[in-house]
């Protein structure tokens, strides 16, 4: 019989000890890792970029708020994953994109990319990339018109197209710079690696500075926020495959060098922050290798033969689709069992 003197005893089963990391804290690490790239976005693309990021985050967060059960709202929002999706989407958008499109993109990312699957942890596709795929399919011109990277002097300049009214396309006259990948594909011009590294090139607002993206990626690797096998597999496969294509076709054939492949376009942003999204990548170590190899191969293939200069988006989404199958066939060998 329980004695009256006894404290009220709980009967929670062991283990009572937990390591300190929590899921919201892991999300916080990703926010921190994205800070350098976000700062670069503001430096090169000014206030317009800031507005894009804010609207895509707002679109994502508001959509989660609207479509989540009233009782669960507070808890579901507390992990900050919706805002993170909005930020990631925003970083993949061109600097001149009308803000209403960014908002809509954030909304689709969370609505169709996450909530309908059952919320955090249940989605098959990376929500930010699903939102981007929607925008690319719906607004092909707005999504492929690039502004040149500026400097801090132009901070307060906003592209007039940013402020287009909802359901208006906006004017893009002043903006028609090509991205390094576009230059490579259509003009057969290479961009200096130093520019790719620092980021003063045209491109999506968060993808241009390889250096700062590497900072964020290495930070996450050290914090064990992301699986190291996925970036390793992507980098190895993409560089080896593009090297092979370069060698097969001859050095003067205008095929990109492995370094150009790695540091141009969205490869780094996609590798460190989207391909490694734990929800949409395989659980098993072997599965992560296969997943990364698949992305590395597809991204080079699409870049070389596709209609658009960039292939990271579809490379990741296609491998997302393969993830459940990869997981099923790469279960680790259980201790004491043969296979």
């Amino acid at each position: 019989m329980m004695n009256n003197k006894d404290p009220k005893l709980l009967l929670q089963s062991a283990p009572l000890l937990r390591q300190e990391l929590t899921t919201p804290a892991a999300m916080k690490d990703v926010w921190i890792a994205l800070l350098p790239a976000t700062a670069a976005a503001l430096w090169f693309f000014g206030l317009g970029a800031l507005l894009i990021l804010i609207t895509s985050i707002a679109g994502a967060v508001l959509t989660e708020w609207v479509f989540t059960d009233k009782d669960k709202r507070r808890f579901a929002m507390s992990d900050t994953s919706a805002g993170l999706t909005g930020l990631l989407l925003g970083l993949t958008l061109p600097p001149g994109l009308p803000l209403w499109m960014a908002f809509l993109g954030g909304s689709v990312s969370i609505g169709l990319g996450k909530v309908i699957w059952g919320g955090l942890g249940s989605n098959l596709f990376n929500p930010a990339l699903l939102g981007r795929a929607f925008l690319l399919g719906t607004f092909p011109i707005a999504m492929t018109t690039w502004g040149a990277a500026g400097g801090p002097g132009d901070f307060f300049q906003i592209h007039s197209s940013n402020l287009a009214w909802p359901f208006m396309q906006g004017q893009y006259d002043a903006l028609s710079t090509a991205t390094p990948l576009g230059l490579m594909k259509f003009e057969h011009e290479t961009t200096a690696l130093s520019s790719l590294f620092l980021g003063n090139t045209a491109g999506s607002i968060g993808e241009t500075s390889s250096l700062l993206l590497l900072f964020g990626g290495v930070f996450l690797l050290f914090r064990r926020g992301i699986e190291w096998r996925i970036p390793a597999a992507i980098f190895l496969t993409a560089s080896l495959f593009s090297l092979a294509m370069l060698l097969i076709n001859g050095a003067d054939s205008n095929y990109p060098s492995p370094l150009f492949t790695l540091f141009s376009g969205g490869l780094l942003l996609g590798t460190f922050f989207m391909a490694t999204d734990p929800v949409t990548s395989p659980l098993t170590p072997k599965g992560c290798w296969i997943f990364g190899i698949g992305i590395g191969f597809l991204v080079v293939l699409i870049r070389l033969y596709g209609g658009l200069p960039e292939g990271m988006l579809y490379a990741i989404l296609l491998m997302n689709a393969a993830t459940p199958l990869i997981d099923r066939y790469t279960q680790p060998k259980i201790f004491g069992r043969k296979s």
Partner: protein
Amino acid sequence: MSKLFSLSSLFSLPFALNRSFSHGVHPPHHKDQTADLPIQRVPFVSRYIMPLGQHIGVPAEAVVKTGDLVKRGELIARPKGFISTALHSPVTGKISAIGMHRYVDGSFRQAIEIEADPYATQQFVQSKKNSLNVEDMSSEQFIDAVQMSGIVGLGGAAFPSHVKYSIPDEQRITDLLVNGAECEPYLTNDHRLMVERPEVVLRGCMILRKQLGAKRVAIGVEKNKPESISQLKKYLTAEMAIDIVPLEVKYPQGAEKMLIKSIYNKELPAGKLPRDIGIAVNNVGTIVALADYFDHGMPLIERIVTLAGPGVHEPANLIVPIGTPIRDVLDFAGGLKEQTREVISGGPMMGSPIADLDAPILKGTSGILAFTENETSGPPEYPCIRCARCLEACPYFLNPSRLALLGKARLFEDMQDKYNVMDCVECGACTYACPSNIPIVQHIRTAKDNLRNRKVES
């Protein structure tokens, strides 16, 4: 372990450099509270409860009746069948009742209640009958003697030891492996035993090696117990030929299969027993109990219990007569703090919550740990984000993420057929590692219970 830079988990070292197993977790040890406290004897109290079924297997059968007078160490229940063991009175006194009594888990079990004689000296007197010369025993005599000693695995499982020592004719034991890993946080009972009675540990190894016919003996101790290692080495002589093996500090280093992997680099096949590959594994506490029985005729009537945790006033390592109510042991150590929310029997990773403090200390009780709000109220449960930390934690290479998901959906057959849930030993490493605070091991326990019950029904 630094949380920032854990490169060692990215690239696991080759075996030769690192006597260990793959995967596992590094919970804080929390052993400082009691590691340096000498073992103390708990005074005798007025009432003892001896549940008949406190070991794995068939409960023992009472050989006394209410009103009988018993001496300390006298047989009070005999084994019923082979997978069962004897019970002895922990005190000199009178059998006051035989009936249902609350067990640690809150259920009722048949138990013998003994009222201690307040005037008895409670000296253990070796009777003529149990003064045996172990050197001259045949293996049948040895196994019978161990069964009548009531000795069970003292690491926590309480599996009757004589069953372990009954080796089928076609099998041969080559290695005796003594488990001094003590990988559970907080617990220091094995550590203190190795520090204070190293010569008895070694003596027990010699007795058991001879009886099992083992060629080699190894004692595995985690490296965070340097005093244990040095004390054992101090009493070790060359002709004993016993290996003292320091092991990497990692949970669950003391799990039988992990220990075998760490020391012999062998993977025990699923569904096999260590003896199938020539190894006998015993806890240091069990080894000491054997030595005490064969050298002094003392059956298993007391054991060492670590009393620790943030909810305890005076942490201690105690010799406790088996059957002592937990409340009395706690009172001896100043009682529980007001902030206590949960009391655990065993370690914090695999122990079980105590439902009633009037339940007794059992043969398998290695520790009594009291925890406060800090440990019992973790963060809320978040959805699984498939971070795979549980896969990296699982020493059996199972897929806890998937198992928890299937468990929630009650798809127990899938858990068994596709993900080998029955191979799980419930060490809790996955649950420790989960940043979403998902009670993975609870889902697994539910599934295993369900699957076992279905098997029984069909």
